[in-house]
């Protein structure tokens, strides 16, 4: 079997044990490649556990900047005996396994079609370090050192990363450099270096930044003017609130008075966190919460109140595997329907679908504007894959000239001048009424907010016509939302195509790669990335102009497809779901295989119209 040969285009996967301190070593490895100008896309695959269970870190090295998961592994760094068998199985034919040969394994433990690289890691480590903690931690750095030799990574780059990380902590710096070279020197003198897969310096990273979606969304909240954040810990959204806290501490403390221009409350549960956001939004502060599926379930009563009483609320849903506790540390796009229709009665909510950290930043800031403009809940639908993985993306941008959109706020001056005020009066015909904030005027503009039906002047009313008028106006408002949310983006095929594909959110990078691969096979697909609900008219046109449209999603029940059929009146016979929901991020390979399979079925068998 010929070993795989590839430069700057391969997948390395680290199999470790949770809690062994491998995370920072693995990230160091990814960053070193990035610093050599080669794009990387790392992914954490981790259990819902603190210590002992298996954990993986997959690094895609991708000169072509395909940042999705490709599928398959070229080099497995197999450090976890518990998962040995399945790790070995995952390696591509001709691929490599790197393992700790301190206790060498019999040949039967390997496959014939892979290259085995054994290094007595524990032995090398234990002969240098006596302290058990040091042994544990430096073992990880030693394998990074060996890999640097095997993959031809410049050690100076790693040393530089160490010097940035341990600035002012010379002792730590020296000991890490020492461990690195211990591994590197062993590999250079005992193993065949480099392997068929290697890294070569290039300049494909450009000015891109390397950032987690949760941090990016948190920064978006800072830039978008959120002053109140109420949250309750839940994976994978906790790091978002924690990042908000960090950024606020840095950028929102008044240098003179040392007072905070933010308030963060770790609430007692999600009922309270959304309640705090509702109260703050009612009183005119920009407020948000970050949560995940189970939190959304608890919040729904309040979300209905915010919808009906028309209160700005921003919710960032970092989706994970459901239902119930499901797969708490795995990714999915399975809260789409739960969020679109959150709460009882007839409700629909604005959803934004960012594709990467850059859009997590943009859409969170925008959600705060939209929530105030529309006086309604707005959801930012991210997921674990974007939220908790460091991704390469375009630099964040901000236009200092832009002011926050505070929406239709009735001022003291206008009330004083005698402008008519009815809290639920549709003055402008766009479904959005004017609101006053508590305390605005001594005698005018006061009103009572409630979840029950009211008339246009916010007076309690159980009259059917008042209720219906209100509900109709809310629909008008949703139509207005359509004009304000981010437009879908078209990725046309190189030549006219009969297939369409719709996708959204974190599926984006895998999709980009899949489209190229399909085109190479002669399967041309026009793709449309949906960025928001309510759906723009372009989405309906797109569906109508293709006989078949693949809807690629990461859930079992084709939730976006359901929403397209329900809300945009798309003919469901045209929509072919492509569904991936095992909890891992969707891969380009999976998309290609599924689309190719359906495409051949639809070209070989002529499409017959059902005549009834």
């Amino acid at each position, binding site marked *: 079997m010929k070993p795989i040969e590839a430069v700057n285009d391969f997948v390395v996967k680290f199999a470790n044990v949770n809690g062994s301190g491998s995370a920072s070593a693995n990230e160091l490895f990814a960053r070193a490649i990035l610093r050599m100008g080669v794009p990387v896309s790392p992914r954490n695959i981790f259990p819902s556990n603190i210590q002992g269970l298996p954990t993986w870190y997959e690094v895609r090295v991708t000169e072509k900047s395909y940042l999705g998961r490709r599928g398959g592994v070229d080099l497995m760094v197999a450090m976890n005996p518990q998962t040995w068998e399945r790790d070995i199985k995952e390696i591509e034919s001709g691929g490599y396994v790197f393992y700790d040969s301190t206790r060498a394994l019999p040949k039967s433990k390997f496959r014939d079609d892979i290259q085995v690289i054994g290094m007595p890691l524990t032995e090398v480590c234990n002969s240098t370090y006596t302290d058990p903690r040091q042994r544990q931690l430096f073992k990880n750095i030693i394998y990074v050192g060996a890999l640097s030799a095997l993959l031809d990574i410049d050690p100076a780059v790693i040393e530089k990363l160490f010097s940035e990380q341990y600035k002012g902590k010379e002792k730590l710096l020296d000991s890490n450099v020492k461990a690195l070279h211990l591994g590197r020197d062993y590999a250079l003198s005992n193993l065949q270096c480099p392997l068929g897969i290697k890294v070569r310096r290039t300049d494909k*990273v450009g*000015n*891109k*930044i390397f*950032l987690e979606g949760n941090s990016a969304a948190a*920064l978006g909240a*800072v*830039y978008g*003017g959120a*002053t*109140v954040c*109420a949250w309750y810990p839940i994976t994978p959204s906790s790091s978002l609130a924690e990042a908000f806290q960090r950024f606020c501490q840095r*950028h*929102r403390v008044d240098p003179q*008075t*040392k*007072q*905070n*221009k*933010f*308030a*963060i*409350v770790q*609430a*007692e549960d999600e*009922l*309270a966190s959304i*309640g*705090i*956001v*509702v*109260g*703050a*939004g*009612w*009183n*005119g*502060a920009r407020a948000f919460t970050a949560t995940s599926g189970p939190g959304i379930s608890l919040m729904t*009563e*309040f979300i209905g109140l915010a919808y009906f009483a028309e209160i700005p609320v921003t919710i960032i849903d970092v989706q994970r595997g459901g239902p119930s506790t499901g797969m708490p540390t795995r990714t999915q796009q399975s809260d789409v329907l739960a969020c679109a229709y959150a709460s009882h009665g007839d409700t629909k909510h604005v959803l934004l679908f960012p594709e990467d950290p850059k859009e997590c930043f943009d859409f969170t800031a925008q959600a705060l504007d939209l929530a105030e403009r529309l006086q309604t809940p707005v959801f930012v639908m991210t997921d674990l894959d974007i939220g908790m993985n460091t991704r390469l993306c375009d630099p*964040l941008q*901000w236009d*200092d000239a832009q*002011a*926050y959109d505070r929406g239709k706020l009735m001022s*003291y001056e206008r009330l004083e001048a005698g402008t008519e005020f009815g809290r639920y009066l549709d003055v402008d015909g766009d479904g959005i009424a004017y609101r006053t*904030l*508590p*305390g*605005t*005027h*001594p*005698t005018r503009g*006061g*009103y*009572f*907010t*409630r*979840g029950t039906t009211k008339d246009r002047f916010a007076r*309690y009313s159980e009259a059917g016509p008042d209720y219906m008028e209100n509900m109709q106006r809310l629909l008008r408002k949703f139509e207005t939302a359509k004009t304000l949310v981010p437009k879908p983006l078209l990725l046309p095929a190189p030549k006219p195509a009969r297939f369409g594909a719709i996708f959204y959110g974190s599926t984006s990078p895998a999709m980009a790669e899949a489209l190229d691969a399909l085109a190479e096979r002669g399967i041309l697909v026009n793709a449309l990335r949906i960025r928001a609900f309510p759906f723009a008219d372009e989405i309906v046109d797109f569906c109508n102009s293709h006989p078949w449209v693949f809807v690629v999603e990461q859930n079992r029940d084709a939730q976006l497809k359901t929403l397209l059929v329900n809300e945009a009146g798309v003919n469901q016979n045209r929509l072919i779901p492509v569904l991936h929901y095992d909890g891992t991020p969707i891969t380009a390979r999976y998309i290609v295989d599924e689309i190719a399979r359906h495409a051949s079925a639809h070209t070989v068998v002529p499409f017959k119209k059902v005549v009834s």
Partner: protein
Amino acid sequence: MTYIAKPRLHHPTLPINKVGYTRRDYEGKISTLCAGCGHDSISAAIIQACWELDIEPHRVAKLSGIGCSSKTPDYFLGNSHGFNSVHGRMPSVLTGANLANRDLIYLGVSGDGDSASIGIGQFAHVMRRGVNMLYIVENNGVYGLTKGQFSATADQGSQSKRGVVNSDSPVDLVALALQLGATFVARSFSGDKNQLVPLIKAAIVHPGAAFIDVISPCVAFNNHAGSTKSYEYVRDHNEPVNRIDFDYWPKREEITVDYAEGEVVSVTQHDGSVLRLRKLAADYDPHDRIGAMNFVQQRQAQGEVVTGLLFVDPQPEDLHAHLKTAETPFNTLGAKELCPGATTLEKINASLR
């Protein structure tokens, strides 16, 4: 955002307070509660207290959950903003509102079902966070609005109108509030205006989490023999601990402590307001949290309802102090104050390469 009310014409005989309002200006819509409901007396006491305190009505935000009691904010302070939120979750909404604008006065009105059953979690946490507010529970031991089911404050062994005997032991919200760190804890009775009005006034000016549990008999479902929250039962078993004469000095004026030995304890508050407490029980000290807890429990064991100011912390801190939030209300801050700007973002970008 403070606006002085313009002078308006009033009926010449109606007395006007210092901010130019008559008592009428503190009224709201006409109540739709059952005639004789204790909750209406509490609304009247709130109206009286706010008028006497010279509060501009529109500077009060009144929030509630769901229930008959939670409907009452519609029946007082008609020119202020009210919020009838969801069942049991008023405390979180009030917390958020308070964070958004610390300059208003926050009044939370709730029922015993609302606060002690579905909302007990939020009740507990709003007290321990020290949100600056007056939180009133209009406690009738039943669910009024859903027609007479037991609430969690119903006493063990008491009987519902339908003849069901309550087997669960009751939640005592006063004991809970004391334990959780509320800095002002009182209990009163809706029928005792002389006691209730000064208590409300004192609680409003208290710059921290103030809680008043007001026994408020439900004429429709809980005013029968066998109920321990009926008018008659409470009248027979009520032991007031103290009576309050109340003086309020606006912020920044000299702090005066008017202290007379023996019967009076003066409580100087953080913001300069002073409560003069005339103790009826000579040995009662409202500064002693543990003592208050003991006292309430002991009396309770004897089947007595203790009313009055049970505990007050003269140096309370509120949530804003804990969070070190800016003096300026958040809802007035714009991009200029809040956004770190493009140059900073460029630096952040640079640190991520």
